């Protein structure tokens, strides 16, 4: 590496034989014009849509500049993170516990409810086209509705509070888990259940001893994985009044208490990191180091 790059023998040799190289590798030196045009068109389309989006969505430079200025100010006010009094800190801590509880109940209850549905929606367990199609469509529809929307709906049904949050996460995850579970069941090795059938076992025996032992660790791993992302979701459903720390966060942002905001965000980040660690450990214990997605 002591030699200046331009004087490297390889480079000099290549430079001497430049014309020969161009002749021998035309596809590199002169890529086909069609491809170039296609790439150019795709890029132009992407950029055009982007510019159109900026116009339609009312982007303007002056607003962006003042906004960024304000944001810088907020950041300055946010430091150092503080909750003011200890009493307030414990209020937030309680809300945080509520958040984790919402995520826990929502995730695991959804998993329990989704278990039978996952079997119903799996092609190899219920080989009925109509059942398969209907269960998949229903599950997809439930999944298409965001947690925040579920939270709003449940707030108007059971009232404000964390219980609405639990039900919201339950609904959103029910759709998700049913889909994941049925896919895992369909991917299961059928030899085990065939073996059980050959010894005279019934359909239920085949499911219990042939399929369940294969898929249960996968289910556990998936559920634990989503427990972490649900903790994150549980922090925000409070924004629409469904309990947890989100309520405080939205409130503190509205009343411009920036130090509280940064303290709350910090608390959320730490909690999510802890849950992440714990669930990753448990998942590795469940399925072994290698199989982790």
């Amino acid at each position, binding site marked *: 590496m002591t030699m200046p790059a331009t004087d490297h023998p390889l480079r000099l040799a290549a430079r001497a034989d430049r014309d020969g190289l161009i002749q021998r590798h035309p596809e590199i030196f002169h890529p086909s014009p069609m491809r170039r045009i296609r790439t150019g068109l795709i890029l132009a389309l992407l950029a055009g849509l982007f510019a159109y989006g900026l116009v339609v969505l009312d982007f303007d430079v002056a607003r962006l500049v003042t906004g960024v200025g304000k944001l810088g100010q907020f950041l300055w006010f946010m430091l150092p993170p503080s909750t003011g009094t200890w009493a307030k800190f414990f209020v937030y801590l309680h809300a945080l516990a509520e958040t984790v509880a919402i995520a826990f109940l929502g995730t695991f209850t959804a998993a329990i409810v989704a278990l039978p549905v996952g079997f119903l929606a799996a092609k190899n367990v219920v080989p009925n086209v109509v059942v398969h199609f209907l269960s998949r469509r229903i599950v997809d529809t439930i999944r298409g509705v965001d947690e925040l929307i579920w939270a*709003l709906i449940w707030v108007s049904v059971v009232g404000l509070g964390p219980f609405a949050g639990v039900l919201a996460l339950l609904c959103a995850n029910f759709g998700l888990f049913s889909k994941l579970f049925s896919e895992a069941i369909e991917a299961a090795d059928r030899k085990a259940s065939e073996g059980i059938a050959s010894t005279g076992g019934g359909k239920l025996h085949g499911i219990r001893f042939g399929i369940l032992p294969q898929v249960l660790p996968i289910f556990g791993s998936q559920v634990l994985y989503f427990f972490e992302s649900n903790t994150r979701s549980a922090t925000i459903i409070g924004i629409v009044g469904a309990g947890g720390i989100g309520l405080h966060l939205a409130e503190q942002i509205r009343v411009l208490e920036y130090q509280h905001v940064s303290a709350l965000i910090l608390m959320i980040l730490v909690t999510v990191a802890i849950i992440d660690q714990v669930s990753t450990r448990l998942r590795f214990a469940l399925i072994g180091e290698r199989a982790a997605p």
Partner: protein
Amino acid sequence: MSSAVTRLPDHQLAAHGAAYAEAVSAKRRQLYIGLALFILAYIVAGIVAEVRPATFFTNLWRFTDYIGRIFTLEQGAAAGRFVLFDPVEWMWGFDKWMKLLWETLLIAYVGTLTGAVGGFVFAFLSARNLTPNSTVGFLAKRWLEFCRTVPEIVFALIFVVAFGLGPVPGVLAIAIHTFGALGKQFAEVAENIDMKPVDGLTATGATWAECMRFAVVPQVLSNFASYALLRFEVNVRGAAVMGFVGAGGIGQDLVEAIRKFYYSDVSAILVLIIATVMIIDLSTERLRHHLIGMDNRS
């Protein structure tokens, strides 16, 4: 063909049997302890989250009632009947909602593209095998982590205060979150590339940027595009709820309909959102398969 199973003498069998029973009961014990801990955690969580099963079951009819109600027309010739009896009345705000949905899609698009460009640059800075120096890599990684760990709706809440109501804060919130999420996924793709072309280019005296452009980008581009499309899908869902905090899109109308109990509007907007999300999912899935297929062919 007949086959016979050789049966061990009884005293040997007994030893195996005992070992098996011991192993099974150890596993059972573990299971019961795990189950007991789980149930305990469940009860504690239930108390903290103020779950009241009794109230829930007595109020369950409210939910079915609600679902029924949102699919019942409030006014017009077919008032009190299922919404499909008078689709025109049900979808009375179709033009307005489609416009808002289009705005939602644009928020997702502009946010995804902006975030993807940022993620693209930071992926090269933070990928373990490509980072120009370890301090830069470390800082880039932490920044990406921060961007994706804070939920986008929290960014939106803060940006609404800074930039004012409207789609601008929504776009920026989605862009920041996408920046973090895609930056990480892009970096993971880049960490799995074949390093030989990079070595080859380095040997010819190419700079870091030239190495990235000619040795790395051709290897990762189709995967990057695939991840970006997947993220676009996720962001369409995210953009649909941005309106909840005043950050533009269809969410504003939805939250109003739910809060003010315009029942049939809730179902109309939900159906439109779900249909849009499904169409986007299907079309991006096709595009992604096409992209991945292209990658495998070359």
